[in-house]
């Protein structure tokens, strides 16, 4: 990707549609994924993420709209698309009844390597993914994390320019999840674009440089993780008071300074203020003024934090909005 500004984007779709019976699984999807980045498709189960990825990977034919991968149409130039992409599906796409080595040698042969070169390539991949010891074991005997790794190893065997990872960490323990994240970082470091679907907001937050939030087959928000968070508000102020009897007084003070309602938590010492989008820029400034005023009023604050909203909060806020907008 020598000229990222002039090269076509890794993925570009406009009005992409897929209908299954009466369900519009993907309903006018517009995406633009710049090359060389990790792009997150974030959405709940049934949002249409997998269907979208399957269309982009040439596995499912779109019912409407257009999709291009590096400028190649997914229907008309399917073979060209296939030579540049790879997919790690939600359900392990390696062969259970073969060993680790056999799985990779098979794929290498299918990509045109002759058997000795295929064996060499398989050994390299197994080594880099920490599977050398397990190479002669059947994949069905692998742990969940090892399976994911061989699956991703199989996906990068063809040195794809674009790698689709469909929910790569669903069902993994935290350690295996971290391993997958490190692998994804390695892949993108080399210039391969990664399109990652996930239901885990922290995963998208950690890996993706841009995120599209998908619900009912449409993009309902798009941007960097930071932009998405600030779009629903600057953040949340948490306070913990030494004396719970001062909570009412502190709450009134905070409400007037922050310009947003202070809410009493179940903990009698705690107060929370959600800063709305309007008070965006000055949130930190206002919070520090509020702290000074509280000190002047003789209210002791034991603990204070001002944080950006989590992506979970963003997500719930966004999906609630779409529900209100379209009364069923």
């Amino acid at each position, binding site marked *: 990707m020598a000229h990222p500004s002039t090269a076509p984007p890794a993925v570009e779709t406009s009005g992409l549609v897929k209908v299954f019976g009466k369900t519009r699984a993907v309903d006018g999807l517009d995406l633009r994924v710049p090359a060389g980045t990790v792009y997150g498709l974030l959405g709940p189960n049934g949002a249409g993420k997998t269907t979208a990825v*399957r269309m982009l990977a*040439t*596995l499912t034919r779109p019912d409407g709209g257009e999709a291009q991968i590096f400028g190649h149409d997914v229907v008309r130039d399917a073979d*060209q698309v296939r030579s540049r992409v790879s997919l790690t599906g939600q359900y392990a796409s390696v062969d259970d009844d073969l060993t680790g080595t056999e799985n990779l040698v098979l794929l290498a042969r*299918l990509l045109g390597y002759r058997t000795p*070169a295929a064996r060499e390539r398989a050994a390299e991949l197994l080594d880099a993914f920490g599977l050398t010891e397990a190479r002669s074991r059947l994949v069905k005997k692998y742990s969940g994390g090892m399976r994911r790794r061989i699956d991703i190893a199989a996906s990068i065997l063809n040195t794809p320019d674009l790698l689709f990872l469909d929910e790569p960490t669903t069902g993994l323990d935290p350690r295996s999840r971290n391993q997958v994240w490190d692998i994804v970082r390695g892949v993108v470091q080399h210039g391969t674009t990664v399109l990652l679907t996930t239901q885990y907001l922290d995963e998208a937050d950690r890996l993706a440089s841009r995120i599209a939030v998908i619900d009912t087959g449409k993009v309902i928000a798009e941007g960097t993780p930071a932009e998405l968070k600030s779009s629903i508000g600057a953040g949340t102020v948490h306070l913990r008071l030494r004396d719970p009897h001062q909570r009412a007084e502190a709450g009134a003070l905070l409400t007037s300074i922050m310009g947003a309602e202070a809410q009493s938590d179940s903990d009698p010492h705690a107060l929370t203020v959600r800063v709305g989008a309007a008070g965006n820029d000055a949130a930190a400034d206002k919070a520090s003024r509020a702290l000074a005023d509280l000190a002047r009023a003789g209210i002791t604050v034991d603990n204070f934090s001002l944080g950006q909203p989590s992506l979970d909060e963003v997500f719930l806020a966004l999906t609630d909005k779409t529900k209100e907008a379209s009364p069923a």
Partner: protein
Amino acid sequence: MSTATTPPEDDTAADYTPVPDRVGALLNRRDAPNRPSALAASLAFCWRALLKIKHVPEQMIDVTVFPIIITLMFTFLFGGALAGSTREYVQFLLPGIMVISVLMITMYTGMGINTDVEKGIFDRFRTLPIWRPAALVGALLGDVLRYVLAATVIVLLGLVLGYRPSGGATGMIAAMVLVIVFAFAFSWIWIMFGLLLRSEKSVMAVSMPVLFPLTFLSNVFVDPSTMPGWLQAFVKVNPITHLVTATRQLAAGTWDTGELAWVLVSCAVLIVVFGTISIRLYNRK
């Protein structure tokens, strides 16, 4: 999710720390080869089928035990009544029983394809820039080995039971080749059902009403001249009847081009019709 089920404790998983640089280094396009030819891709899939046999040899039981059982069963059940002695009857029955046994096990091809589709492994194959039918053709080539094994088992058992084909070894081998070629063509029916139906069980359920009438309503067990006219009409056009006749003739060393042509044309029709439908289904999945 499929990966979430019972992850066994594993030492290698715990020790592994991925090094992003090493993973990245694997993405260098230094020796990316050209795409494989149609034949190379099919052979790679055939290798996959053979590996599966190597890892799960039990799956060969159905291609060895089943033919033995039906050969013994029908030889001893009908032999005395129909031909006076089992030894007499086996001379008539053996080529036909070979046809039936091999065709019965072609159904497993469809079940295997169905399992692959359900597991998602085909998704990976379908994103590869290879000759599209390779996955199906390769799987079928692997199954052909099973057909060869089944045919061999039956012929050997026949020899033990007193079967002596007058065509000698050459005639017998020619007969086996013809049966296997037909089985290859016939298997496309099951590949189609494997791609079309939802589960292995449905493939099995569909196969019985197809296989039983086709194989039994033929000239395998008895001479059709004793059958009622309407049945004779069916038996006469049944391609299995022609296959059995041609197989008997080859084994006896006296073939007739008309029968052979009938069989080969049926093979071509089966491949063109069911092969085309299967590949369409495979592309559309």
